[in-house]
């Protein structure tokens, strides 16, 4: 989906989303999970998730459950890619250097 390893416009909300995933880089999170962790509203959260996915930082897939047996709809789960993990780490590293400098 979209370009891979593209530049992403960084904002405070984007950094908070990335921070949520960096707590456990291998963990798959849904939009509701990210909202619970960072408290970003849906109107801002989902464009960020799609933007990061389009840039190749995230990959997403449907939850592997049977909605009829689970009694709930399946969720869209997002996970950091290796590129995304590397770029996110660079962003936070550069941000910390800029603030501490």
């Amino acid at each position, binding site marked *: 989906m979209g370009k891979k390893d*593209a*530049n*992403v*416009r*960084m*904002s*405070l909300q984007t*950094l908070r989303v990335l921070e949520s995933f960096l707590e456990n880089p291998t963990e798959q999170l*849904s*939009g*509701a999970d990210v*909202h*619970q962790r960072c408290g970003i*509203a*849906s*109107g*801002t*959260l*989902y*464009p960020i998730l*799609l*933007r990061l996915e389009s*840039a190749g930082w995230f990959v997403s897939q449907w939850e592997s459950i049977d909605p009829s047996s689970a009694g*709930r*709809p*399946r*969720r*869209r789960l997002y996970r950091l890619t290796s590129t995304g993990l590397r*770029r996110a780490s660079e*962003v936070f590293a*550069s*941000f910390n*250097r*800029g603030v501490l400098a």
Partner: protein
Amino acid sequence: MSQRSVTHWLIHHAARHAPDSLAERLEEEWLADLERRTPGVSRLRFAIGCCWATQVIAFEHQPSKAAVGTTAVGHTLIASADQSFGFISLRSSTFFLVVSLHIVLISGFMTALSHTHKSAVPDPLQNRDLPHSRPDTVPPPLPTPNLNHVIIEVPNLETDLKYEPDPDHSVTPGPVDEQLPPTPPTPLTPHIAKQVAGGPGAGFPDTVDFYPPLSIHLGEQGVSTVRVCVDAKGRLTSDPTTLKGSGSARLDEGALKLARAGSGHYRAATEDGQSVGSCYPLGIRFQLKN
């Protein structure tokens, strides 16, 4: 319309305006995440946010704008304001859209609550002038009641009393009261009855037989007057009593015995020749012979 249907309609409406490649996915994803929200205002805010997210996503996926929305990653935060809809930026239009939605919702709630508040709390009392209800024209006087000819109709009461004899004889006539006032004599035809007093009759006992022996020995003499009541046949109807003593109790007692012994031998009193019962004094003389 329930809140659940409102939120679902908002999400469906938002996803329909997303790019075609993402519409179905976003609707399913948002509906799934909607279930994670607590029911109430949180779900409504989530659905409204999805509407806003659709606008942003659709704008970023436009070919001419897609390149503008991304900037190089620098060492500082970038607050881009390149996205705009003509004269008004996207951020400003979104802000006004959200503010308008809040105003509509708040006004809707206030309208609904004001109706409830008005029905629960009555209006304060207010003074107001009542219209002048007294008529200007004087009503005509009441007619004078006619009190001279009052006819009172008395119902005709008919007393039709019938005497029914008592078949069981449960009521027996009482004795005639002797104290009843006597009936007044008829003045028109005065009648003087010819009355003859009674007295000792044939076979009346001799006084000698009842002279007390001690009185004879002592020489006592005298007249004892007793009151006797006899019927039409000369019989005593009551015990004789002493009206006037002789001065000797023995002679008076002998006189009473003589009066009792003479019962049935008295001569009855008569009125107009008819024997009637009567009471009268009877003098009994005890006298010794020389």
